[in-house]
């Protein structure tokens, strides 16, 4: 009637499988992990930090939390998080409420909007970076009336250099 095996507590799941690749920056907080063999199509949202080591095609919406794309992560999606760290590959637009970091192993094709953006040496990036997310549209269309006299003057030395250039 009573199965002793059922009374025996089951061992906890093994988070150790992803621990070695967990970025140091976020190890102090608990994070959900999408493992290397997981493929997801669709929208991901939630109320905790997330590490993606697998493949995601869609969008990730975690505006109050940290998002890490691990070295094995391949994401084709628009990303929105408080802090976004890219160690893997991302194709899509990235919005960081605080900052976006593309590490040396990271590759991004898309546009980044965040108050602070760091590209580490070796990072691959193609797209635009907007570090003035609050009012970029208004500033972009406003010419700056700040030319110094030296650059607003007529060309200097052009003739001499032309001669040298042949």
């Amino acid at each position, binding site marked *: 009637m009573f199965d002793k095996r059922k009374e025996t507590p089951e061992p906890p799941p093994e988070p150790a499988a992803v621990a070695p690749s967990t970025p140091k920056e976020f190890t102090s907080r608990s994070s959900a992990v999408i493992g290397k063999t997981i493929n997801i199509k669709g929208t991901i949202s939630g109320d905790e930090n997330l590490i993606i080591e697998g493949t995601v095609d869609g969008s990730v919406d975690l505006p109050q939390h940290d998002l890490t794309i691990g070295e094995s992560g391949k994401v084709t999606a628009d990303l929105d998080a408080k802090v976004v760290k890219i160690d893997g590959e991302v194709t899509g637009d990235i919005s960081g409420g605080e900052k976006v970091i593309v590490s040396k192993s990271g590759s991004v094709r898309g546009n980044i909007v965040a108050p602070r953006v*760091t*590209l*580490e040496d070796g990072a691959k*990036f*193609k797209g635009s970076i907007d570090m003035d997310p609050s009012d970029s549209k208004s500033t972009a269309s406003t010419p700056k009336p*700040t030319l110094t006299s030296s*650059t607003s003057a007529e*060309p200097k030395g052009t003739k001499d250099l*032309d001669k040298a250039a042949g």
Partner: protein
Amino acid sequence: MSEAQGQGPGLVYSRLLPELFAGYEDGEPLTVLDLGTGSSSTVAFLSRFKVRIFFADLLEHPTSLRPGDDPNPLGLQHAIARQLALPEDAMLDVVLLWDYLHYIELETIEALSAVLLPRLHRNSRGYGFGALHGRKPADANRYGIADRDHLLAQPTDQEPQYYAHSQQRLSEHFAALRIARGTLLREGRLELLFDSP
């Protein structure tokens, strides 16, 4: 050649970079087009501004930007505009040309100029390199901004065709910006500061 001494490999002193950003205080809005690959040093330097940076490495697919048999220059302009991928509202304060103009033919320079012209305003500026000795091939480098008066030059293994356009040719075919100043850099090249004509 005016390479900074004892300040690390690839670091090159520039007299004109300070003028490129003269008048822009830290924290001010700034819109920049960089015709190169995304550079960590450039992003780090420009982060002092409220900056919007567009990286467009036009050498990534160079064959698509060569003048073909089509006599209509609009085709080339459309190809360049597609690769620049600038949003409609983007008006450029600074264009970092680096040495890109020397890797494209004159027809492509004219097409690039036509595409950039409506994106520039009366105080837009540019920065790039001239070629002093046309017969001397240039080392292929990726460039970035290290600080207000230093460039970072990192050699690449790319070997695209180098045309070494004279300053006069650049002035004739790149009408979007005007060469305002030039100073001597290493390898017989010039650094050039452009402003709006």
